């Protein structure tokens, strides 16, 4: 038999009496091995698909976003500091910088999240559920790249504790866990997640120092380029302003006319599509998000209904805004951004692909999903464009509709019930 199996079997008796240790053991065991349980009641055979596999496919669909996010952190960092402004200049340096910036965030999210999951699973005597696989993969992607680690930890802890465990664990939550963690940062530490400077990581953390990334900058570019002087470097021409912020102040023209210190266009269509721009870690790249969404739809894991109606809703609201711009508010810049360009800025597509489609918090009926997606699209666009205070609407729109999802389902079910009743009458 497999030596790994033997090892696990030899450990099992030792942890059997300790509740917590056994939960951890059980989590590890079911991660490594599909268990040997057989069917007892009901069907004698079961589908090869289980929740772990479902969840891991979402994580797989996120991988492209992770790769680009990692590189983009490094690229934006050096861009802001006026070094290696070509996309592939200093490729490994940028990759390394991004990796060392992202990895600690990823590790902290999982330490905190899994820690809480393990604790509650042990307390309830349940096995560990795999819901955190997806939340844990999503949370780092929707955080600003230079977010302090303790803040990520707190946000994750808050989300898992309040939004999930308090409601009874995986499958019982009302609100999207990943978004709750972001909304926590957004309201608790607004300075860290709004404005122009938070979307680029300027600093060097301890890992950058250990691996000599900082020393490299020092050696080849001098003291000037160290973060203490970041402000001056920024003023030299690099603006961390995101396309959203630019669009809010000056419309689509402002987005298009933003330039880098070397004179290049900062937000060309190609940059917007591939996500070479300041922003949250993983949600910048439209192409890779669409690729992930495509994978999930092809695999039948995420609901195409939600995605489709989301896009329709956003387009509908966007067109409405454009009409308003022509008829009523010709001065307001953001309203005038052409609706199809709205898809290129901000995290619209990421929210569509990975946030709105969370099966637990979305509407659960097929018709309900269409309404749910459409409403998010409309609401999110309204919050994005018309609201002066919150720069992006999807987080709030999705959380808002999370709460209304059961109501939507209620009416869909009610129509089914009425259909059945009308047969009798």
């Amino acid at each position: 038999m497999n030596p790994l199996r033997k090892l696990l079997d030899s450990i099992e008796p030792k942890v059997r009496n300790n509740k917590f240790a056994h939960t951890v053991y059980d989590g590890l065991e079911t991660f490594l091995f599909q268990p040997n349980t057989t069917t007892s009641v009901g069907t004698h055979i079961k589908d090869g698909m289980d929740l772990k596999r479902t969840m891991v496919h979402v994580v797989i669909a996120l991988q492209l976003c992770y790769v680009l996010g990692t590189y983009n952190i490094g690229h934006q960092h050096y861009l802001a500091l006026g070094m290696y402004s070509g996309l592939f200049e200093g490729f490994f340096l940028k990759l390394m910088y991004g990796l060392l910036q992202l990895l600690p965030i990823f590790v902290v999210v999982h330490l905190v999240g899994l820690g809480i999951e393990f604790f509650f699973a042990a307390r309830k005597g349940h096995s560990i559920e795999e819901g955190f696989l997806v939340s844990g993969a999503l949370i780092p992607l929707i955080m600003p790249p230079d977010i302090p680690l303790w803040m990520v930890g707190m946000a994750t802890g808050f989300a898992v504790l309040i939004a999930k465990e308090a409601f009874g664990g995986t499958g019982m939550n009302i609100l999207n866990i990943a978004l709750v963690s972001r909304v926590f940062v957004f309201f608790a530490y607004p300075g860290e997640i709004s404005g122009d400077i938070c979307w680029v990581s300027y600093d060097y953390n301890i890992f950058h120092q250990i691996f000599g990334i900082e020393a490299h900058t020092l050696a080849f570019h001098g003291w000037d380029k160290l973060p203490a002087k970041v402000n001056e470097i920024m003023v030299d021409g690099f603006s961390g302003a995101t396309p959203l912020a630019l669009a809010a102040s000056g419309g689509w023209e402002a987005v298009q006319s933003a330039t880098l210190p070397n004179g290049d266009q900062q937000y060309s269509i190609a940059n917007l599509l591939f996500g070479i721009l300041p922003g949250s870690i993983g949600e910048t790249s439209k192409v890779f998000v669409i690729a992930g969404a495509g994978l999930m739809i092809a695999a039948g894991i995420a609901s195409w209904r939600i995605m489709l109606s989301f896009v329709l809703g956003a387009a509908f609201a966007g067109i409405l805004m454009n009409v308003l711009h022509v008829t009523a508010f010709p001065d307001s810049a953001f309203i005038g951004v052409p609706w199809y360009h709205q898809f290129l800025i901000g995290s619209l597509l990421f929210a569509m692909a990975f946030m709105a489609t969370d099966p637990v918090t979305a509407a659960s009926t097929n018709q309900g999903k269409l309404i749910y997606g459409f409403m998010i699209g409309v609401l999110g666009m309204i919050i994005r464009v018309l609201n002066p205070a919150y720069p992006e609407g999807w987080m709030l729109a999705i959380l808002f509709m999370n709460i209304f999802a059961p109501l939507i389902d209620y009416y869909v079910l009610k129509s089914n019930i009425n259909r059945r009743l009308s047969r009798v009458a």
Partner: protein
Amino acid sequence: MSDNSGIKHFTKFIFSLLPSFSKSYLLIIFTGFPFMAFSQSGGGFNLQSVVILLLAATMVLVVFLFFVFGDHLIKDSARVAGYGNKANTFGVLPNKEEVSNIIHHKHAGANKVHKLEKGFDVKIKGKAAKVIEHYDPATYAVKPYDFKGLQPIPKMSVEVGTEVKAGDKLFYDKNYPDIFFTAPVSGEIAEIRRGDKRAIEEIVILSDKRKEFKQFPKLDITTAPRSEIVSLLAESGAWSSFIERPFGLVAKLERVPKSIHISTFDTSPLAPDYAFIMKDRGTHFKKGVEVLKRLTDGKVHINLNAKKKPLPFYSEIKDIQLNWFEGKHPAGLPGIQIHHTDPIDKGDTVWTISPMDTAVIGKLFSEGIYDPERIVAVAGPQVNTPKYYKTYLSANLSGLMSSVKKEGTRFISGNVLTGKQVDPEKGHVGYYDHLISCIKEGDFYELFGWLIPSYPRPSASVTFPWTLFPFEEFDVNTNTHGEERAFVVTGEYEAVLPMDIYPVHLLKAILSRDFDQMEGLGIYEVIEEDFAICEFVCTSKQPAMAILRDGLNYMKEQS
């Protein structure tokens, strides 16, 4: 006929794709050729691109011709080898008849075909070959547990040692003293096996192999009053083959159903071919349907598979309704068919009966004997030579198991979704079952089985690579492939259940004991077997059937 021709399956599969655009990936591959050609030349027409296009087209043509010529060669050699007419079934390409069966569903004629898009076929290796063997074991056993809605301890009419003939009363339920359960063969009561709390598990009859039948009066169906017909059915033991909906219990004598449904095909995994089983029982069947017509106020519905040529006698019967269905499992279940043709509302009663039992009733009325002859398929990946056995109701299993690997095998009376596990030595075939499924036990660990599965397994999810080739049959086992979780994924039940019902919400209503919601969401229209495919595909591994039965019991208590 060579059943193992994978290439043949593949070509069949390609043909089955052509008319349906729902699975268009092959189309994409073929249309991909020209695009590839253009991309080689950077867009635009030029000499190079045309050459590549022509090359690609030629390649497709060559492959096609290769298939055609190869097919002819094989068929010719088969003819030479002396297979005669059967030679047409050889070869790599399907013959004309097979192709037309796949492409045009002409059996239904101009009638409406209920095309059920949703559903899922669990394809398992080891379908029974169309060969019948006679089988007459030493013991037969009637199992009170087979009949839903009965008390666990029925009232016995016999005791150990009593001599019985086929059709003699064995026991009845205290609540329904007019419905009798009778012996399938003649012989001596060998044992009354009891289980927990003295509930009776089996009444074992030691067959005397003489096949003596109790003689019942021969009733004239057209003139006899309904009450006499009913009481004859109840006396003889044929009554218990009626299943009453809602709740899926043995039918009540006093009820008059609004319709009776007969499903003439089974889509469940490893299902026996009803057309094969029924092909010699046309006269009895027709007589049986005449009896059924007397029992209902409404119509007798005979539900046919639009994809297969039906047995001729189905369409010969007058004054019945023929319904044509096409689709994956569970399209063959009467519950789904009723939902689409004659839905059950609150207060309605509908009965279902299998065509085989209808034939038994026909024989009862034409010859006056209760002769529950059964053709049982023994199938599954664990069976060396899966085939059919001609025997009687509730036959002992031990003799059927000669060709089955016994080690690590689970024996199931019925199909792998709804059947019951039985003991291969002492067990007997269930009352309503025409199939013994033999599959592997899945009590083993699999390293990263959830991520990188080490062997193919059936799944409705397309995340498994082999789901791209829908012709594949699987060697299944009973592993749960994951642990039980809360309902997380939505829409997967709906995707396989071709009914206008919200299964997950119905189950949740049951769990929260919400009477009105259960009723509103259509609990009367379903019984466990309808939800079996939902339970199979469930990624959260929820016991959907058990929950539904729980709900049905609750509804029955409340109403």
